[in-house]
């Protein structure tokens, strides 16, 4: 029998930690039945230690941590985190510039919060349907396939990062490139959105092979 290679130092009975303060301040009556069961289960089972990237402060965001980890090269988390914070700063500066130059009636439509822009840009980049290679009768077909949430988020982040690393001028700094890409994605423009649309069109074109999928 083959043993799977991915194992964890924790016993399988350990549950994931819940870091957000708000979830512990809810009074007992507001919980649904499922939540009550979850609470009872949590009271009995041991809980894993919170990882160093997770914290209950307002500044820690799981999406941003995931993005920072994907940008990281050879374990240099310090550099990746600095780049991320510089990116958010550049986005804020660009948006503030636009805000101060814009006329009065348009001032409310300009979004200045870099976190909101980041989340919205990621959401706009996420593809809805993906393609997968299925070999049937010797030929490999590109079959349209539904994607899980995790896979969508991963693809959006990966496209953004590869776009910034490869298709830009060598001398531009990463925060500049990333902030540019994020702002374009926020407005549904830019090469990443184009890539998403190309993928959707390919999936639409290969609709005939959709029945090859067996899951």
């Amino acid at each position, binding site marked *: 029998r083959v043993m799977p290679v991915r194992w964890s130092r924790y016993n399988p009975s350990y549950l994931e*930690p819940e870091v957000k303060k708000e979830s512990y301040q809810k009074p007992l009556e507001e919980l649904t039945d499922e939540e009550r069961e979850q609470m009872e289960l949590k009271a009995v089972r041991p809980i894993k230690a*919170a990882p160093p990237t997770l*914290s*209950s402060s307002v500044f820690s965001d799981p999406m941003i941590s995931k993005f920072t980890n994907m940008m990281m090269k050879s374990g240099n988390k310090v550099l990746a985190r600095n780049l991320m914070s510089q990116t958010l700063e550049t986005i804020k500066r660009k948006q503030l510039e636009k805000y101060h130059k814009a006329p009065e009636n348009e001032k409310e439509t300009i979004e200045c919060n870099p976190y909101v822009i980041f989340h919205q840009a990621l959401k706009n980049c996420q593809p809805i349907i993906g393609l997968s290679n299925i070999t049937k009768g010797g030929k490999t077909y590109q079959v349209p396939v539904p994607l899980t949430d995790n896979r969508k988020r991963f693809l959006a982040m990966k496209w953004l990062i590869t776009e910034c690393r490869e298709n830009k001028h060598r001398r531009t700094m990463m925060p500049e490139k990333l902030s540019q890409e994020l702002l374009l994605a926020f407005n549904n423009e830019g090469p990443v959105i184009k890539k998403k649309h190309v993928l959707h069109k390919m999936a639409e074109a290969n609709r005939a092979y959709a029945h090859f999928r067996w899951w």
Partner: protein
Amino acid sequence: SLRLICTTTAVQRKNVGASGPEKYTEAFIKKQIEEFNLGKRHLANMMGEDPETFTQEDIDRAIAYLFPSGLFDKQARPMMKHPTEIFPEQRKIQWGEDGRPFHFLFYTGKQSYYSLMHETYEKFLNVQKHQDQLIAKDLPLQKEKRNLAGSRWLTKIELEEMLLEKLSDDDYSRFIQLLEKLVALPCADIAENYIQKFSKEVSVQLQKVVIEPLQYDEQGVAFSTGEGKRKTARATAVVYDNGTGKITVNGIDILHYFPVLQDREQLLFPFQFLGRIGKHDMVCTVSGGGRSAQAGAIRLASAKALRSFVTEKEVEFMRQAGLLTVDPRVKERKKPGQEGPRRKFTWKKR
């Protein structure tokens, strides 16, 4: 199934009794028990104690005194225990003198397992019949929900010990699925006695740790200490009350000791979670490990110290946030024949 690293000792014990037919006869075991009892009385005499009230703990202490051993493994040291603990239970011969087996399922190979499955399914059908009768009479079905969180099913090893037969993972999971189906029925209270044979109670609260009371120093300021570790780093933290939120590590302020924002965030995590950022002072010492490991160790130490300042409910919240568990992840060892823990040598065709 995943390969378990962090397990309880119950999972690691090998079940010798289920591996094959009889290795020692009943007469042999009886003789061993007699010899053990005689030996117990002799030992009590030797130690100058009363043979009638000589318990197993006294025996262990006496043996450890008479035969001191520096061996690391406790099982390898000399021990004197009751024969039923040393020679595990085993199956008796399953067939009579004419060679005909006693049990009707003998030729399936796993007679106890299949007979157990048949029994459980019989109970299941009985419960369903009872349910149908209640529906026919238009009586309400009993809906008292069984507390799922307070009990767990027997593990595979425990079930093997009960049946005295080897089970495969598949068999075990099928049995557990059948039990879950039985429990999910509304009228499962009828089979409650039967189900209790296969479930064990889990301690309701995992708060087995004793919270130390606050200590007071010369000026009357309350303080408490805590110890933490992460990878190779070891830290001790002393948290003082009525403070301004100053944190000192090895005599150096945290801004200088931890230039990275992530580490400082980790240090402040327990305080921020409890909402007590500006109220406590902390002095810590830390050694070993790297930058992130030291931060994690101090976080654990400060969380443990803060337990004394805070209500029990908040301690439970801290535990559920993962602040009070020791992180078991350590560097994986390098294996022979490979370059690192996972990386293999470059494959060369010739």
